[in-house]
């Protein structure tokens, strides 16, 4: 009698003999899709921003400026050239990694974005860590206990976490830890070069405010996906073989459970980046979110374009990697899109 091979989670499919070719073609296709999507995103961003009413020159020089000054500045910024010209000039800059100069300050944009990333990068990462630290234990525990009262309580906690807006949580944290207890700064960011401890202190409350909500959302996904795995036949078979419930779950179930979670992970990243914009405003962190908001308010269109493309590229690349990993983890998905 043939015994099912339980070291892989499913019946192994016969692989066609041209496997390396398939893989290469798949990768090429995915990368091509990525590039086309990026290009479309750039066109969309450029069109939307440049069709918005509100000329940068008039905003810069104010309501009392002479019309000739406004015209002179518009020409100086190159904003009276045809839109296609301006678009091509911008794209050429991006591709050659020249992000251009701000319309407002005439200073290079790249160093400003770099400085902002020193704040937002660690913030998003820390938020992700906080989120995972909450989601994994909470999700697994509530899934294992989903038929019992304690599991319902845990699930309820996750639900509350999803319901709280992250800026409300942020302000509450400031009141408790900064104003009342005075153990952490109420706002602001000590740069990494000034003090590493100071920088970490500045990020604790924001990371918690950012990560808690995302963690609660992720906990729900983990819970649902583990419950589904717990009901699977192969797990019952593993139990029948003599494994204890948790051993069976870990050895056979987690890999399957991780697939939908991986998908959500890609979306979580977008959620964290968006959440970071709000959290940066609450905690006055000079990150990418603050830069984006102030550039929109100043009609510094080129900085807005650059930041949006940066974020879009990050999200699209991460999602592409997730997509590829997906198919590596689960050969059942195959290599066709």
């Amino acid at each position, binding site marked *: 009698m043939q015994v099912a091979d339980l070291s892989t989670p499913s019946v192994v499919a016969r692989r066609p003999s041209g496997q390396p070719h398939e893989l290469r073609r798949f990768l090429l296709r995915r990368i091509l899709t990525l590039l086309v999507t990026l290009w479309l995103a750039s066109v969309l961003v450029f069109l939307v921003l440049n069709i918005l009413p509100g000329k940068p020159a008039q905003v*810069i020089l104010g309501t009392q400026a002479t019309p000739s000054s406004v015209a002179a500045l518009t020409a100086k910024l190159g904003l009276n050239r045809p839109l296609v010209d301006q678009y091509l000039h911008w794209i050429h800059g991006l591709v050659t990694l020249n992000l251009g100069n701000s319309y407002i300050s005439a200073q290079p944009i790249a160093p400003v974005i770099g400085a902002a990333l020193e704040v937002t990068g660690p913030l998003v990462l820390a938020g992700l860590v906080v989120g995972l630290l909450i989601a994994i234990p909470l999700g697994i525990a509530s899934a294992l206990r989903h038929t019992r009262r304690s599991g319902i309580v845990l699930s309820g906690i996750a639900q509350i976490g999803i319901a709280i807006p992250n800026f409300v949580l942020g302000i509450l944290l400031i009141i408790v830890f900064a104003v009342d207890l005075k153990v952490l700064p*109420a706002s*602001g960011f000590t740069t990494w070069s000034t003090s590493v401890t100071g920088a970490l202190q500045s990020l604790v409350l924001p990371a918690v405010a950012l990560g808690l909500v995302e963690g609660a959302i992720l906990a729900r996904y983990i819970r649902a996906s583990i419950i589904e795995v717990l009901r699977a036949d192969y797990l019952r078979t593993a139990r029948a073989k003599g494994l204890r419930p948790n051993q069976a779950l870990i050895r056979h179930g987690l890999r399957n459970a991780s697939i939908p979670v991986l998908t959500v992970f890609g979306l979580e990243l977008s959620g964290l980046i968006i959440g970071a914009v709000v959290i940066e405003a609450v905690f*006055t962190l000079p990150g990418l979110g603050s830069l984006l908001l102030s550039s929109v308010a*100043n009609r510094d269109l080129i900085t807005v374009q650059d930041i949006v493309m940066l974020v879009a590229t990050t999200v699209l690349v991460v999602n592409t990697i997730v997509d590829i990993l997906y198919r590596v983890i689960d050969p059942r998905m195959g290599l066709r899109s």
Partner: protein
Amino acid sequence: MASSLRHLAKAAVLVASGALMLSACGSSSSTTSSTAKNTPLQTLTIGSSNVFPPTLNPTANASQAIDEVIDYNVLQHLVQLAPNGSIVPVLASSYTVSDANKVYTFTIRKGVKFSNGNPLTPADVVFSMKRVYAPGSTYPYGKIFDVASVRQLGTDQVQVTLTTPSWNWLYDLAAYSNGVILDPSTISTMATDPVGTGPFKVTGEVSNYSVTLARNNQYWGYKPHVSGVVFRYFSNADSLNAALESGQVNMIDNLSAPSDATLFKSNPKYKVVSSLTNGKVQLTLNNAYGPLRNKLVRQAILYATDRKAIMDAASGGYGLIDGTDSVPADPYYIDLASEYPYNVTKAKQLMAKAGYAKGFSLQLVLPPYFYAKLAAPLIVSELSAINIKVSVSTIDFPLWISQVFEGGNFQATIIDQAEGRDVSNYGTTGYYWHYAQTPQVAAELAAANAAPTKAEWIAGYQKVLKQITGDAVNDWLYIAPFITVIDKNIVGIPTTAYTESYNLSYVGIGGTIPASAKQLGYLS
């Protein structure tokens, strides 16, 4: 629990205690006088509700956030406005006005150096003033462009000839950052490092976060009693208030919302200083829109508005109601608050007389500022009493500029007309509220500016103010306040807000200021 979960739980506890340990190692460092150190000079940290300065070059951008930091503090003018409204000589040690306000001769102060050590020369003054109106100039504001010629006289004088005589030109030179005197060799780096003759110099900025000034040790005048000043920016009123309460900043230069003053008024650690600005918060009426073309309708609206209630709601009761386009700092100031007392019956009579007893609908478009948001509901309910159905929408400021200000495409809006001495807007053809009598006002203002005596100039301007109020061009709600909250030991801040600059010339943590400074309007 499975062992792996136990490991996870342990890890979580470790990280949490790590975070708590981090927070325990030293609380936030940027506070001030609580630690008794022997160094007499400290850094003043100012929490600002303004937007972050888009550039540090005030001649490239009209944003008041730039002037708040740079004007008067880093870059100086020939003459400047003291907090009490008087025009005082600064880089000019004296000046004479001749040819009926057309020719101005300035004697340049001796011994003045820029913060980089270069001496101030009359040639620098000529260069800076010519830069304003040069062809292709992109100076903001449009002020002090009306210059025909600037030339050096002798070794230490500069003579300016205007295109037309003006009683306002000296004020414009003092009040607007177009009048800053620059070191020609530093022009290329002005966006990040403007070099001037002022009491402070720029030593750093963190984008969207802070600007740092250090005391200029080459400064020719009174040395402020601080080692430096840091402006920190907050986009959120709660964060700003929390920063003061937790000691991260020493003061808030202007509260985001005046009603927040109640948080600090009864706290003995702080002092609340309230003052007025040049800003006239008004319900602007498009005089070219349908029913608003009729003067009786506009007057009805003014009678139907309870300005006191609006000021209480939008401004925490701070401010001043004077019913016209003028503030107490103006030499021609006149109080016309009693012209349109709150009288709904009278308002209804006027509406009926104008043929609008049944009322009409009015679209009120708001910029995204707190005073507009707070005043709007009261406007809606007060105008509904005379059957005007108001619908409200909010747009962002650049859109307000393009749609309302440039395009004149609106019916009514609420805005703080923040420029000082801007009565000339009522004589500018095409100005966004489309007043029908602009040519007449323009002629009267021109005559007043050409008047031989100051008294006649003042009389001419007051006549115009009475006319625009009589014609109910706009509904002037109240003069916008400026509310500063300081730690008790801070001295030398300006007690009025009539300048774009936040004048730090006499500021100090602890200590006192000279009696002459107190007379000029600095806090002692």
